[in-house]
Each structure stands twice: as C-alpha cells, then as structure tokens.
C-alpha cells in the first residue's frame, strides 16, 4: 500500500514538474485560447494567425527569439486565470494574449495588473474589457466599432425600421445597444430587440417573431464560428420573400464558415474590419502564408487579430530594444500605426483600444468560392464608449 501511494504521488509530482526550464535570450508569449469546446474554432484561428506571423516575419526581434506557448482555457474563466498565473510565474512570459470570451479577459485582468505583463485582447469584443487593466491592449476590435457602420449604412439605404437579434451575452448586448443607439440617432426605429441563448440550437421562434414584426431589416449578431446554424434558419425563414433585408456584423458571415453557407447568402450586407478578400498586397501575402502553414485554411477576423497582436508584440519589443519591462512595452504600443492585412491600423494612445479600418461588404461568388467583398470604406472609428485617459 505504502509503495503504491508513494509511487502514485511520485508520478503526480513528476507530472507537475514537467515544464521546461527557460533559456536566456527568449521572449515568451503566452496565448490563452479556447482549443476545445464551443469556441474551439476561434482558438484554432487565433493560433493559426500567430503561427502565420512567425512564418512570415521569423521569430527574431531586437536580438531575441520569440516563442509562443499555447494553453487551452476550455472556455472557463477560472481555468484561464490559473493558466495566466502559471504562464507568468513559471514560463515567465513577457506577454499574454488571446482570451475568447469577455469573462475570461475579465478574470485575467487582475493577473496582468499584478504581474505588470501586457495582455493583448484579440477576441473578447466588449468595450468594457480594456479599462479593466492598465496592461490590456486591444488588437481586435470592439462591438460599437463594428455596429456603427452597418447602422449608418442601413439608415442611408432606405431602411426605416429594424429588429435586432443577438446572442444573449455581453458582446451581443453591446451590439444590440450600439446598433439601436446609432440607428435611432439617424432617424430609424428599432421595433424589437431579441436575444437568443448563447448555446441555442433553435433560432426559429426568434426569427419568426422578427418576421411577424415586418421590419425593413433584421440585424444579426452571433459570435464568430456560430453563424452557420443561424444563417441556415434565416434562409429557411425566407426573409427576402417578405421584403425584409438581413444585415449583420461580419461575425455572422465568418470567413471560416461562409463557403459552406451556400448561394442563399449571396448579396448579404455586413460590416467588419476584415475579409479574406481584402484587396491589398499586405493581405495577399498574409492569406498566402496563412494557407501555406495552416493546411490551406482560410483566415478569418480571429486570425488577423492574432496576426496583428503579434505585430504589436514585435513592434513594442523593437521600440524597447528587447527590454521586457511591462510598463515600457505598453507605453511603446500606445499610438502605434502600421499597415495590417485589414488596412491601416492604429492603437489609441489614450485608451489602448485598437482603431481598425471598417468596411461595408456584400457576399459574392469569386473564383467559385463565397467571399465578403468590400464595396464601401467606412473609415476608422474610435471606440466611442470610453473617454478615459491613461
């Protein structure tokens, strides 16, 4: 008995100890991503985006080698917090990054603050995230940045009334709020705001309700990777036949899923900062390298956020000449501008929020595949929610 217990404990101890010791000139980046469960596809795109960046740029910057450590957060906030703590304490990471959902970013905030490690928000799109820690910097985008352009477009294109349907969680509620605010400022009217449970397999009652209200347009938002079921049921409900336009943020016509949705989504109008179809040399190079290192996968907005997140990390290291002092790195990120695959990017010097370019796009068939084709530049929008400084 004694031997069994002891050997069992020894095995456990060995397992706990099985993390490699670190070398001198390495800068580690800890990515906390959902690799299993509901949000797994988001995690895969983020990881693939970071890998594409290293493939394109190489892993050396300011005389140091950058290494990525990926951890699976399982979509659970308290596990993410533990992983962040372990990455900081054990792996001595100089940067954290990723964060699939708002509560996960929120849980990591205190760790970033306490450890003074910059944490790059790539996914969680709620505006409330970045103010939670002075070490948060956003490489993705926020909900109002995505929803304002589509609300503007709707108001200018003969849409007088709308119904919103969003997933019932923080970014969804942000999307609902900011669409309504902007659309009604421009003279439109939101007839009803519907919220579907996050893990809902059945949207039909909500869609039917939206249809029965007979608005000019239906505005949709669901998290990236979840759009396929929604669009299937939207198409089935035949909104076009009832003269209701369907508009959305780009999350719904996610590049990851778009090609499978079929011709029924042709002509759908969305707003977003990234389309794999974006016509620029930077994007062509990005898509090419991304497909090359990731088994011909098509990059989506998550991939580009991870790519730009790595860009931020490299540029800040360049600026500090390899110094990994967290405060210096965050300061170096403030006000950074560069040419991203999505277009001109900037980090707000005051708020540490990303200021990405926004576009209005339409689903079209190109070379046999479906793409979100950009047809209107909506310019760069600062996140309107916080005016705080620091």
């Amino acid at each position: 008995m004694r031997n069994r217990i002891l050997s069992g404990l020894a095995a456990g101890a060995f397992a706990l100890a099985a993390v490699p010791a670190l070398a001198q000139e390495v800068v580690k980046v800890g990515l906390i991503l959902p690799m299993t469960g509901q949000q797994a596809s988001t995690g895969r795109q983020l990881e693939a985006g970071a890998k594409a960046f290293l493939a394109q740029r190489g892993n050396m910057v300011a005389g140091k080698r950058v290494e990525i450590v990926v951890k699976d957060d399982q979509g659970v906030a308290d596990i993410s917090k533990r992983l962040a703590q372990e990455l900081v304490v054990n792996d001595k990471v100089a940067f954290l990054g990723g964060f699939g959902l708002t509560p996960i970013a929120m849980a990591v905030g205190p760790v970033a603050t306490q450890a003074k490690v910059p944490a790059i928000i790539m996914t969680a799109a709620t505006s409330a995230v970045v103010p939670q820690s002075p070490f948060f910097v956003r490489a993705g985008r926020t909900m109002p940045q995505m929803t304002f352009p589509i609300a503007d477009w709707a108001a200018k294109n003969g849409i007088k009334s709308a119904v919103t349907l969003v997933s019932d969680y923080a970014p969804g509620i942000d999307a609902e709020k900011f669409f309504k605010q902007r659309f009604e400022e421009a003279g439109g009217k939101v007839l009803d705001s519907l919220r579907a449970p996050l893990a809902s397999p059945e949207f039909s009652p909500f869609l039917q309700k939206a249809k029965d209200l007979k608005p000019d347009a239906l505005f949709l938002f669901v998290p990236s990777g979840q759009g396929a079921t929604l669009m299937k049921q939207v198409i089935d409900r035949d909104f076009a036949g009832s003269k209701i336009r369907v508009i959305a943020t780009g999350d719904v016509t996610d590049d990851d899923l778009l090609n499978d949705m079929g011709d029924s989504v042709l002509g759908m109008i969305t707003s977003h900062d990234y389309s794999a179809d974006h016509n620029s040399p930077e994007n062509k190079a990005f898509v090419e390298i991304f497909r090359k290192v990731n088994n011909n996968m098509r990059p989506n907005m998550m991939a580009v956020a991870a790519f730009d997140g790595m860009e931020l990390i490299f540029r800040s290291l360049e600026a500090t000449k390899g110094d990994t002092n967290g405060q210096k790195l965050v300061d170096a990120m403030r006000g950074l501008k560069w040419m991203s695959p999505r277009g001109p990017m900037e980090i707000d010097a005051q708020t540490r929020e990303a200021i990405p370019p926004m576009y209005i796009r339409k689903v079209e068939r190109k070379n046999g595949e479906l793409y979100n084709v950009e047809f209107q530049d909506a310019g760069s929008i600062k996140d309107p929610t916080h005016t705080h400084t620091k």
Partner: protein
Amino acid sequence: MSGSHDKDLQSASARLLKQSHSRWYEWLFWAVALSLFVIFGDFIPGVPTRLMLLTEIVTLALLALSIDLVLGFAGIVTLGQGAYFGLGAYVAALLAKGGAGTFPMSDPVIGLLIAGLVTGVFGFVTSFLVLRGSDLTRLMVTLGVALILSELANQMRWLTGGADGLNGVMPSAVLGIWEFDLWGRVAYLYSLAVLFICFWLSRRIVNSPFGLSLKAIKNNPLRARAIGVPVNARLVAIYTIAAALAGIAGALLAQTTQSASPDMIAFHRSADGLLILVFGGAGYLYGGLIGAAAFRVMQDVIGNITLQYWQFWLGAVLVALVIFVRNGIIGMMVAGWARLRKGDGQ
C-alpha cells in the same frame, strides 16, 4: 468463561471505535498535501509553481467530497451539486466585491461561512425535491434545479453581471494577515485548511451513529423505515450539509480566483464533480480528493502533450477504468492491497 466474554465485549466496542481512528496513511496523505506547498510553491529553484493548479484541485476535491456524502453514503444520485457550488461562488464574490477589500464584508472566512449558510438554506429547501423517485428521477430533478439556477444567474444581470461574470472581486487578507498572492501560496494553504476542516467534519459524520443510519438507508430504505429510522429527515439533513460544503467549495474558488462567472454554476461543474468522485471511488471520503488530483493532473499532463485532443485520452482512461476496475482508483488500490496480502499468506 464470563471473563473472556467481557473481554470480547470490550473488544467489540474498541473495534468499532477503531474504525473512526485515523490511520497512518491518512496522516501521510495530509502530510503530502502540505509538502506539495513547499515543493511547488516556488521555493525550490527549477521546480515550477503549480499552487494555482493545486488550489483548483482542492476546491474540486471539496465539491466531490460533498457529492460523496450524498451519493457514496446516503445513495442519492445527484447531477445538481454544481448549483450549490455556483451559488456559494456568487455569494462569496458578491460579498468580496461589495466590501471592496475591507473588513468585515470582504473577509474571506466570513464570506466562506455566509456562503455555506446561504447554500445550506437553499439545499434544505431543495432537498425535499429529491426524497422521492428513482435514480434517474433524482438525477434529472437535481440537474433541473441546477439548470434553472444557472439560467437565473445569466438573467439577473444587475446582480450577477450576467454572462460577463463579476469582476473587481477583492477578498481581503485571510484572517487579516495573509494577502492573496500571485504565486497562489496563501490561496493554497487557505483552501487546504478549509478542505481539511470540512473533511474532518465529514469524517466524524460518516463514522457517527448518524452516518451509520445513512449507510443503512442507502442499503435498504424499506428496512430502515421498519426499524424506526426517520428516512426523510436523515436525507434532508445530509443533503443540506452537502449543499453547504459545495457552497463553501464554490466560495473558495471565487475567492482564490477573485471572480465569479456563469460557468461556475454551469452543468459541467456538476458533471465534473460526479465524474471525479466516481473516478476516485465513491463511499470512501478520500475518493473525491484522490479523484480530483488524478483527474486534473492527468488533464494537465495530456493537455501539455496534445493541446487539442486531450479529451480523447481522458475519455479512453475513463472507459478503461470502468471496464477493468471496480470503485475507481481507491477500489483499485483496495483490490491490489487484498491481492498483496493474499500473496503474503501463501
């Protein structure tokens, strides 16, 4: 003759009492748990800090222990212990947030006690739902209560922060002395102490006359009633106690991670707790503790080897364990021990 008879009687009493005495391997268990603090607490150069993982294991172990009380000893199958876990987490988090790091509201120990009290009351109220029905009925009723509660946590945004969860949860220093640190040192020792106290109480409960009556109810409720055991009252009592323990476990997690979010009350907490207990072995008290450690360490190790597909290997281990072993890890150890003794005898 009467002399030997008296001696015999004494030994009967003594033998019963001995069952409640602690054994050397129990002391070893807790000594090891304590020594892990030194080994993985960033005191030894080169050995990584794993106290946060260990703290997580401790809270899970407490959750599994609470399930063991109702399932392993009283025979109530439950898939709803996550409800009490989550409720405890929210209560503790709200207290810590409300007090903004000041005594008495943000005090962790007071928070823990209040969380235990609130979940105990809720457990008492809901216990009446599980008195009737088959295993499946109880499973689904407890699950239903948990699902309703988690939906409530999602809807009551004004209180719980909805799907965002609560942030700014700042428990003050433990006993006013030890602040929660980045290495998780205070968190681990604090959780381990709480687990030890809860375990010790549970141990007294199952070795008492009350505990004996629970085992009897689990074995044969019909006969238990016939010899005068108030079956329903006993089940209500143990269900309430277990709910309070689960609430304390949730409160620990909320305090040590300084957050509360809907996934603390989600279905997978209940499922994890049950899985861990059966994995470790139900009805031994230590099953939940060993199961939690084995399960999480395994998850961590496999996760480091294959980031995306660890679920496959974890599933394979579960399947193999059920097919080849009875009563989980402890069952395996007991069987191995018996075989060993048999071998010695020959």
